[in-house]
Structures are given as structure tokens and as C-alpha cells.
């Protein structure tokens, strides 16, 4: 504890931990539904950690991607565990984020003064879907390939700019090497970095306003 005291003497960390964590009071009536945001954040952290581990063996190239995943699944010790936690975690995160949104919507928690929370949460949900979609292509399997073909085709139906948007997403006319490269960049860098910033904003906002009481109290 002397290290903690040493730090505390300089930056008064204990009062921050007390005020924000160990003695941070929440409304009495909250239930399990109020844990979904925290659950989504926990899964996000797990995804970042397992994602970094997968980067050690994954090769983002059309010739090697599939085989590198096979190697992770069959040869690397506990590779199957790391990869399946990452894959199942992606689905779980979408479930948690969706239920979080339903709960907030149902309880009216998005109302003034928490509109900014809703808006940043909306962006976070879009990014969650985007990171899941871009990650889906990376194993470069039949399922990923055709899944991405169908998903990017959907972007092609946007009026006027659809075909151009489709080509921009794919990096060429059809899903191929350039698509894998851009989805990889989105999946491991652009989207997670943006999400970290938005999560920080989201948490800052909820600490500024406090969480909402269930209505009718």
C-alpha cells in the first residue's frame, strides 16, 4: 500500500477512486438492464485484447489469410480459444449494445438532459456493426467472401452515389485483395480508435448527468 500512498500524496488518486468507483452512488431502483452498457464496454475490452493476440498470427493477404486462421485454430496453443472468444464476443457485443438501446428507449432514458448520450450511443452502435462486418471478411472464407459481396451490394443501392460507394468500399469492382486490405485497416485501426474516443465521451457524459432514475419516481 505504500506505493498507493506515494501516488496518492502527489495526485490524490484515492479521492477520485472513492468518488467515481467505490462510493459512487446510483439510484436504488436500478436492475440488471442497467448493466448492459457496462457489459458492452467489458466485451469491447475483451475484443481489443483478443484482437491484438490474433494480430500476432493473422496475415492480411488473400493468399495467406485463410491458412493463417486455420493455423490459429489447429496449431497455435489455445488459438481456438482466442479466436472463438473474439468471434463469439462480436455477436455478444451486438446483442449487448442492442439490448442496451432497447432498454434506454423503453425507459425513456434518452430524454433531456441525456440527448447527447443517445447520439454518441447511436454512433457507437453503427461502429459496432461496422467493426463486426469488416471483421467478418478477414478469414477470407467462402462465407466471408460472399457475405461481404452481399453486404457491399446493399451499399450499391443508395440512390445516385450507390455504385461509386460500392466501388469505394471494395477498392475495385468486385470483392478482392484491395477489399481485404481496406476492411483490415478499418477493423484493426480506424473503427476501434474512433470507438475508444466515443466510449470516453459516452462515459464522460453519463458521469456528468448521472444515470437516469426509472420513470414514475
Amino acid at each position, binding site marked *: 500500500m505504500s506505493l498507493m500512498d506515494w501516488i496518492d500524496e502527489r495526485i490524490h488518486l484515492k479521492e477520485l477512486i472513492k468518488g467515481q468507483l467505490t462510493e459512487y452512488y446510483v439510484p436504488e431502483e436500478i436492475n440488471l438492464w442497467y448493466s448492459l452498457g457496462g457489459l458492452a464496454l467489458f466485451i469491447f475490452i475483451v475484443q481489443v485484447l483478443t484482437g491484438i*493476440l490474433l494480430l*500476432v498470427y493473422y496475415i492480411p493477404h488473400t493468399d495467406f489469410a485463410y491458412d493463417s486462421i486455420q493455423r490459429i485454430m489447429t*496449431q*497455435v*496453443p*489455445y488459438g481456438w*480459444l482466442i479466436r472463438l472468444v473474439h468471434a463469439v464476443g462480436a455477436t455478444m457485443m451486438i446483442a449487448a449494445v442492442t439490448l442496451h438501446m432497447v432498454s434506454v428507449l423503453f425507459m425513456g432514458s434518452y430524454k433531456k438532459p441525456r440527448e447527447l448520450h443517445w447520439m454518441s450511443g447511436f454512433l457507437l452502435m453503427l461502429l459496432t456493426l461496422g467493426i463486426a462486418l469488416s471483421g467478418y471478411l478477414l478469414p477470407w472464407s467462402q462465407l466471408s467472401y460472399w457475405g461481404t459481396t452481399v453486404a457491399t451490394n446493399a451499399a450499391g443501392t443508395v440512390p445516385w452515389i450507390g455504385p461509386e460507394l460500392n466501388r469505394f468500399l471494395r477498392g475495385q469492382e468486385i470483392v478482392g485483395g484491395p477489399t481485404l486490405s481496406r476492411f483490415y485497416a478499418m477493423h484493426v485501426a480506424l473503427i476501434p480508435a474512433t470507438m475508444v474516443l466515443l466510449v470516453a465521451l459516452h462515459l464522460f457524459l453519463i458521469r456528468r448527468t448521472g444515470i437516469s432514475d426509472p420513470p414514475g419516481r
Partner: protein
Amino acid sequence: MGEGRSEQEILLESRRKFLGQCLAVLGATALGGALYPVVQYLRPLEADKAARKVEVDLGEIPMGTAKTILYRGLPTLVINATEGVVAISAVCTHLGCIVKWQEERKMLFCPCHAARFALDGRVLGGPAPAPLEVHPVTVAGGKVMLGA
């Protein structure tokens, strides 16, 4: 601080402390359980360890030239010299750069700091503090074999 507190307050605090310690033990166990697969995952793969037995086709190494191969995972020069076939570590004993075989001067030369070695590993000049390790080879049927 201890004065003026009721027995119950002291009891509550010691209970809180005990529960906190239980939680710390549980947390440490969970962390260890999660960390074990991660350490195993990151350990270099057994299958990737370079072969302990290496076979090189002598036809790939014309007389007077050398070929760099991996033996026990380390760069090794197989030199087809007039004196016979020599297998010698290519890792310079100075700072670990990879030495090259110089055909015309019949010596091994390190490109980093110009250490020079003879075919038997002796230091001929430069900053190298120790000779290069020479590995025993057997030549049979046009093949050079390293390691047992």
C-alpha cells in the same frame, strides 16, 4: 482514529476488509486462468523450431562457393571449399551479424564491423572476440548432412 468507534463499526470494517481480500484472491485466480492460455498462445511454436538435422544437396553449392542454411534455427554457412566441405556458424561472435563467405579471399567476412574469420573459424582480424563454431558434417552420395 481508533477511538470513539463502536464495536459494530470495527466489526463491519474488519468484515469489509476480509471480503475485499477474498475478492482479491478470486480476482487473482481468474486473472491467472485467463493469462495462462495467453502465455501459451504467444510462446514460439515447437513446430517452427528449425530442424536439428539438415541435408543439403552438394550440387547446389559449386566448388569454391557457399550456401547459407538454417541449422538449429541459426544461419549456418555450408562451404564447398577445396579443403573439403565445411559447415560453420554464420553468426558473428562480435555483435551477431551474419557473416559472408568471400570466395576469392577464402575467408568469412562480417559486413557490420569487418571481422574476418578463417575456414576453421579462427579470428583473422577485426573486433570478433571468439572463433566461429564449426559443425561436423558427413558427405555421402552428393549430400551434405549436418547434425545427428
